[in-house]
């Protein structure tokens, strides 16, 4: 069990910068989720920690010890590869016990202990009937679970899981997520878990690290990321549909209050944010609004109308819906309940946005003015 720390880590592949001064800490026993689009550098982070890729610059500390120059076999970390990386010539059972039979761990467990350890894990992952097969004979989802099992049979300092449940069908994924979380809690092993799916990140992680183009955009709990996204990119990565960003809106002062006003659009700006805007003397700002924070008003609602638009298109998204509304020259996405069919296109619609739910970004740096 150990605390992990990266300090200003840089990783270059030739001239390409894969990781750009990445720094973060993971506490002993903590579960950190790394969220980012494909190609953001998630896999690279895990690989440099595992030691299969060297770092170009920076410090890598595990349990207070600098492990940057340590061979992977001595780092005592277990990794689940996104590509599964099973051993094609070995049976599923031999694949899973392979790490337990390594020269470093040999003879710490007897054959029967190995068997029961494998049995326990494969039971949980529902692959116990596949143990005699070869990896080629398995489906993608089954291979992914074998790869997960090969890591989970170990009791390492650190689990590194690279999208370990991404290729499973929805039912299994939902069943497995809490199981994984439980097992991790029980074992108390520090864990890094990557995903491209924000729902998964919000659902599983205590803390979430948002990664984009090799840079750490923000680290925080789900609540922090939601309430104060550090930049427009963070906002765009969270939520389905992603955050609405209205570019280049001009704040205006009227009767002692500051407003963001545009055609069909008028939102008050809170005191704190007004202060920030004035400190920086910004004449234009980018405004972010989560689609779920926009309230569609019925005619008898008492809320103040902050926004008027015309319905453009409605997309059902399963458990919820996404309504596109034309407001002036912008299109706002609004999250609705499922089977939202009360309105028809081109119909006028009134909306309410609370001033607390408005995120204001500096248009040049795209960073949140209340944090950066």
């Amino acid at each position, binding site marked *: 069990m150990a605390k992990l720390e990266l300090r200003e880590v840089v990783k270059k592949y030739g001239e390409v910068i894969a990781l750009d001064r990445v720094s973060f800490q993971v506490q002993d026993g903590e579960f950190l989720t790394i969220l980012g689009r494909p190609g953001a550098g998630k896999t690279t982070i895990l690989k440099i920690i595992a030691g*299969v890729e060297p770092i170009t610059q920076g410090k890598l500390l595990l349990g207070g010890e600098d492990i940057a120059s340590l061979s992977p*076999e001595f780092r005592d970390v277990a990794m689940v590869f996104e590509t599964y*990386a*099973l*051993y094609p010539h070995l049976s599923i059972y031999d694949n899973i016990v*392979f790490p337990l039979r390594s020269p470093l761990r040999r003879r710490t467990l007897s054959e029967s202990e190995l068997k029961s350890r494998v049995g326990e894990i494969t039971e949980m992952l529902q692959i116990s009937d596949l143990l005699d097969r070869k990896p*080629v004979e398995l489906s993608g989802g089954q291979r992914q679970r074998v790869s997960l099992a090969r890591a989970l049979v170990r009791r390492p300092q650190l689990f590194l899981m690279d999208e370990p449940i991404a290729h499973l069908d929805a039912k299994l994924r939902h069943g497995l997520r809490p199981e994984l979380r439980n097992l991790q809690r029980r074992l108390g092993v520090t864990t890094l878990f990557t995903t491209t799916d924000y729902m998964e990140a919000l659902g599983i992680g205590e803390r979430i690290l948002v990664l984009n183009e090799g840079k750490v955009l923000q680290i925080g709990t789900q609540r922090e990321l939601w309430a104060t996204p550090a930049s427009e990119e963070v906002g765009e990565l969270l939520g389905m549909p992603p955050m609405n960003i209205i570019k280049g809106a001009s704040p205006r002062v009227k009767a002692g209050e500051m407003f963001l006003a545009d055609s069909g659009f008028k939102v008050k700006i809170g005191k704190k944010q007004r202060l920030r805007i004035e400190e920086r003397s910004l004449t234009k700002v980018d405004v972010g609004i989560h689609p779920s924070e926009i309230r569609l008003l019925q005619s008898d609602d008492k809320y103040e109308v902050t926004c008027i638009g015309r319905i453009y298109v409605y997309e059902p998204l399963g458990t919820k819906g996404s309504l596109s509304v034309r407001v002036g020259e912008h299109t706002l996405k609004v999250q609705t309940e499922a089977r939202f069919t009360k309105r028809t296109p081109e119909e006028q619609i009134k909306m309410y946005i609370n001033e607390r739910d408005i995120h204001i970004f500096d248009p040049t740096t795209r960073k949140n003015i209340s944090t950066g």
Partner: protein
Amino acid sequence: MLRKSLRIMAIVLIMIWTLFPIYWVILMSFKTPIDVTTYPPKFIFKLTLDNWANVLLGKEWTGTHYETVKTDILRYFKNSLIIASGSTALAIFLGLPAAYSLARYKFFRKEDFAFTLLSFRFAPALVVVFGLYSVYQRLRLYDTYIGMIIIHQILLLPFVVWMMRSYFAMIPAEVEQAARVDGYSWWGMFSKITLPLVKPAVAATSVVAFIYSWNEFLYGYVLTGDKVRPVTPSLLGFISYERVLWGQMATAAIVAMIPSVLLSLFIQRYVVAGLSFGAVRG
């Protein structure tokens, strides 16, 4: 139906084209010296085992009785066996690490190195062989097994390296990385994961390399004396001033052919298994 019969006809024609010379040599080995040189050639003749008795057992029929004569074909055969096995073993031993490095690592002028290795096979052997002759005399490598094994590396090493390089490259790097993370040293990973995965490819490559070495003629002819002469150049021994022993030469040629033919039949299956490597993608 028509297409099928055309196909069969084409296959028959190709079979005749390739097998006829072998068939002819086999016939020749059962003919008397007079029948061999008769024109037009005879397809039906009186079978004789004289050539075989002479080449394999060293018994010559004088008309009244068998007389013991000197025959060295089996010794040459053994020489070929030693040289071809030794060359193949050395080429695999040296070639596997080279191939692995070329497949996995980046290093200075890697592609130039790989191409230079391949280019050893471009120059005609005849250009270098006489220079090699005097070098070999001085280094006392002339007419030694080790000398032949070394010179055959020119033929085999580029082949082994280029073949095995592509096989190693087919193993996903992450499979090897997984083994390292699972607690194995580089050597542990190589012996437990990498080698078992390329085993069929190593077998197929070795067999082809063995055949290359076995069939080699020129270096064997120029760089050996009688002691370690391989079987291929030894066939020329049946040509002398007075006469050409066609029947005995044909017999010796058949004997020399056996390993290549057997191995070719054997690798057919193995090479297909080795080449269709798709199963590796785990």
